[in-house]
């Protein structure tokens, strides 16, 4: 029998702890257990055999840390081959007459993925792929990915398994005592993400005992439509008289596990501290358990790495602002690769209360695949909202889906055969909830009935790809009523039918309905209300529109979706007008100010600085404002900082206020009448280093002083830095390194810069650097802080001119 069939019809008993037993046989902490497959095969084999004899159906190979980060290719192949040999020997010599299978065990790499670690997602996929390919080649029955404490790494491992073998895959995560993964995901979230990608069983192991894992088990069972795996520790380890003791016995363990089986878990085993005795007790105790039936949970859920949005709860708001259509300033940001602008749009919309961010960065003149990937990964570093990946480019969509951490929303598919054939395989492979537009080869039908027909066709086609209708959200396409008076009614009627007759969720882009009319918000708000009343599940909206938000919170309150009208009351203020939300920062010395704007910047008032700049732009030349008010304010604060009368936080607050003022000036000039400054300053944290606070501060101040700062981010290889400097003919390049271990990377970068771009002046900074050190590694300048960098940069530019 193959494992998939066995899993479908049986309670599966896994094995127990391996590390603890190897340690008892002499494995030292810090020694690689995987090497014992080769050096002590008889010990490894006998442990596996003990587990089979105790009643395990599945034994996991001794390959937890067998990956190419730790071992050479040659070693890796040898280790995995021996590990499988050992397991096979155990299987063939075991006295047990149960069905027996061998799982290739995959543990975490021990490295954290970008953006918070240094391991690239694709590199992680490759590392897992290598192990899995070897395992599949030498023959195992299934893959078990276990003890993963990061959702993103889990995704990399599962993707590697799906791309490199046809074996069933069990995925098990290590949850902390707060019931979350180290990187923040809940069991429900992991179910959504892993089921979407096609995991065959999903569960939890390690870190906790069976008692503490029960709440995790419960949440998994509530959400999963596949078998649930529970593989706890033997309680928690304690040191008693210098001996390690786990706090529950084999019998207690089995008793707790029986309860978990009765709750519905179907794949059971043990982790750290459990032994063949535990498994033998477990197997006996659950021998007569009635196999619980797995019910299909029809939940439409999208997630980030830490937040889930469930379409069955309340109507979902999708922020539409990350989209260049009709936005000059946004287009400019895209062309200039100004990711920060995109990120601030994301964060601002989150503060306005949206649940999902739509991300569309499509413009003909840019490389959409690269930009969408950066936008998605960088947004995920600053916002915990799920994203809706919105693109018509298939390569861009695939790349974004691949790099996305969680289960995304995908915008969109439609009823055209060709389109479905392109989109559905991606939805199936990466998971996601896809927005389906009710149009096909013949365009958008005039009648609601025909739009429903297209929806039916989409559902049936999706089914052929193995995509359930719960993962499709229909958009019945709002069209302007200025062109066709019944269009809003048709859209709403179609959505009601899809909701009631097909049992599917719906979504609409609200604002199209008012195209060509004055005071569009009025129409949009009412249309939104009508759609919500007809069962609309989600809407792509502008969260800055008071009418939309008013409608949303009122509807929720009126429909008993807002207890005590809490959300309504909390948001009521924002319905009137944008309220001035002043920061209460005050500079700590009295002074005379040359202008109101100068004063606002010195005091660090962000909103006020923006407002005053807007006002000034009506009468003054932008350059006069920059030189007369903004720069003079920054100089005042900068001098104060250097004289130690102003502290760093205050310097930054002023810099942020100045940035808001600049933002107004940039929007004003977005028409392209003025040429951006060509004083390029390329800045980066060097390869291997992931600290960037210092670099970010320098960047902010340089921007304030009018430099065109190109921020390459952190952990940047020398070649990338040099390429950018050469491409821009940048006169200046700033490098940051915080650790002694990354200064060599700085030295290498400086060397390469001197060789390839000799015109470029280099300035370096960071905790471990000193003037002498900087000179030794060949930097033109060591700057002790951000202000010194600014002064140096100004000097260079002045001399160049």
């Amino acid at each position, binding site marked *: 029998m193959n494992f998939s069939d066995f899993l479908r019809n049986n309670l599966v008993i896994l094995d127990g702890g391996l590390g603890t037993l190897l*340690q008892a046989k002499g494995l*030292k*902490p*810090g*020694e*690689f257990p995987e090497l014992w497959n080769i050096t002590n095969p008889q010990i490894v084999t006998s442990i596996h055999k003990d587990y089979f004899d105790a009643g395990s159906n599945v034994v996991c190979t001794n390959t937890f840390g067998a990956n190419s980060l730790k071992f050479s290719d040659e070693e890796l192949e040898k280790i995995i081959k021996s590990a499988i040999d050992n397991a096979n020997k155990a299987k063939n010599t075991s006295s047990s007459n149960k069905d027996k299978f061998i799982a290739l065990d995959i543990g*975490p790499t*021990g*490295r*954290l993925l970008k953006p*918070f670690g*240094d391991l690239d997602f694709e590199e992680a996929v490759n590392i897992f792929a290598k192990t899995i390919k070897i395992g599949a080649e030498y023959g195992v029955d299934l893959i078990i990915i276990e003890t993963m*404490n990061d959702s993103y790494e889990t995704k990399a491992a599962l993707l590697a398994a799906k791309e490199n073998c046809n074996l069933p895959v069990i995925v098990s995560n*290590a949850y*902390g*005592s707060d019931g979350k993964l*180290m*990187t*923040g995901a809940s069991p429900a979230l992991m179910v959504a993400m892993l089921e979407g990608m096609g995991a065959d069983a999903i569960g939890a192991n*390690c870190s906790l005992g069976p008692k503490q894992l029960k709440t995790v088990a419960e949440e998994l069972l509530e959400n999963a439509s596949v078998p649930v795996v529970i593989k706890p520790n033997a309680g928690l*380890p*304690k*040191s008693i008289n*210098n*001996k*390690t003791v786990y706090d529950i016995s084999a019998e207690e363990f089995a008793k707790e596990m029986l309860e978990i089986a009765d709750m519905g878990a179907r794949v059971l085993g043990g982790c750290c501290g459990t032994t063949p005795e535990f498994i033998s007790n477990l197997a006996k105790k659950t021998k007569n358990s009635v196999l619980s039936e797995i019910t299909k949970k029809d939940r439409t859920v999208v997630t980030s790495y830490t937040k889930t949005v469930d379409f069955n709860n309340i109507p979902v708001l999708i922020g539409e602002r990350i989209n260049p259509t009709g936005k000059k300033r946004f287009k400019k940001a895209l062309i200039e690769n100004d990711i920060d602008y995109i*990120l*601030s749009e994301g*964060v601002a919309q989150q503060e306005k209360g949206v649940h999902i961010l739509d991300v569309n960065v499509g413009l003909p003149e840019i490389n959409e695949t690269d930009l969408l990937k950066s936008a998605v990964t960088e947004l995920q*570093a*600053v*916002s*915990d909202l799920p994203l809706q990946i919105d693109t018509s480019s298939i390569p861009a969509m695939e790349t974004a889906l691949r790099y996305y951490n969680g289960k995304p929303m995908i915008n969109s598919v439609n009823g055209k055969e060709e389109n479905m054939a392109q989109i559905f395989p991606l939805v199936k492979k990466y998971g996601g909830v896809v927005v389906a537009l009710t149009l096909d080869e013949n365009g958008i039908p005039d009648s609601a009935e025909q739009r429903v027909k297209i929806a039916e066709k989409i559902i049936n086609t999706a089914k052929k790809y193995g995509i359930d209708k719960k993962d499709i959200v229909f958009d019945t396409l709002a069209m302007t009523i200025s062109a066709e008076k019944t269009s809003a009614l048709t859209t709403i009627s179609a959505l009601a039918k899809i909701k009631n007759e097909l049992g599917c969720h719906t979504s609409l882009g609200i604002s199209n309905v008012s195209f060509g009319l004055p005071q569009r918000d009025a129409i949009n708000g009412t249309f939104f209300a009508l759609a919500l009343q007809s069962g609309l599940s989600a809407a792509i909206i502008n969260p800055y529109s008071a009418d939309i938000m008013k409608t949303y919170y009122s509807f929720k309150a009126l429909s008993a979706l807002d207890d005590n009208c809490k959300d309504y009351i909390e948001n009521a203020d924002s319905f009137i007008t944008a309220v001035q939300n002043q920061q*209460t*920062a*005050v500079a*700590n010395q009295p002074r005379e100010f040359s202008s109101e704007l100068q004063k606002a910047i010195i005091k*660090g008032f962000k909103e006020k600085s923006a407002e005053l700049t807007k006002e000034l732009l009506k009468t003054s030349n932008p350059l006069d404002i920059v030189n007369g008010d903004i720069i003079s304010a920054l100089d005042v604060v900068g001098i104060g900082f250097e004289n130690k009368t102003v*502290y*760093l*936080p*205050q310097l*930054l607050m002023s810099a*942020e206020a100045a940035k808001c003022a600049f933002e107004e000036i940039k929007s004003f000039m977005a028409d392209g009448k003025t040429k951006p400054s060509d004083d390029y300053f390329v800045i980066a944290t060097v390869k*291997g*280093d*992931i*600290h960037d*606070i210092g670099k*970010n*501060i320098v960047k902010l101040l340089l921007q304030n002083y009018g430099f065109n700062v190109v921020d390459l981010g952190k952990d940047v290889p020398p070649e990338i830095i040099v390429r950018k400097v050469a491409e821009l003919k940048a006169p200046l390049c700033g490098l940051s390194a915080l*650790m*002694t*271990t*990354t200064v060599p*990377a700085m030295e290498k970068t400086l060397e390469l810069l001197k060789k390839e771009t000799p015109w470029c002046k280099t300035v370096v900074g960071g*905790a*471990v650097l*000193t003037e002498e050190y900087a000179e030794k590694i060949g930097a033109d300048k060591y700057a*002790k802080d951000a202000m010194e960098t600014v002064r140096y940069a100004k000097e260079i530019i002045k001399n160049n001119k």
Partner: protein
Amino acid sequence: MSRTVLTHTYKSIPICEKEIFRYLGYKTVPDYAKSLLYECLSEIENHLSYKVCYLELPIKIKDNVCDFELFCVSSKDLANNLKNCKKAVLFAATIGMEIDRYIAKYGKISPTKALMFEALGSERIESLCDKFCQDIKHNSGVNLKPRFSPGYGDLPLDIQQNIFSVLDCNRKIGLTLNGSLIMSPSKSVTAFTGISENDTGADFSKCSLCNKTNCEFRGNV
């Protein structure tokens, strides 16, 4: 001797505001800085976790080589720190991933707050280590030497690799080490603390061991 790495999770650790403002460079603390700190604290409070994993190790010191049985390291300063100790506790501590997310997020939208979160995170992890060492001292009635981390004095960062494999940091507390020996989550510490039977050994200053001679805080600690 117990060879199993033990873990401990703290629910909360008392805050030392003074230390946070010291990191920020304040000599006198204005009100706006205090309110900014409280704002940041209220945002992150429920997202911090305080985890430690640790192992007791025997020590033999000879010619500046510290032999911990599971691995050796050559370091004059560590040997000096652990002088007269027969055992040491090796530990790794972290306040978790979330603080890095806040720092990254505000790094993009408000560097002032990012800076505040940096200072706050540094204080949190230092306070966690202090609390952990206090508890060890308190629970076992031993004297502890001041904790000593890779990068202090001449103790090389390479030793992180040994520490990570011995403590199994990833599995125990979710801590990872990257290719440049930098830890993620960033607000994390690994350290040795010597168990001393006869002296309190508080005879060293971190500053005197540090190579960063241009540091503003030098000598103030």
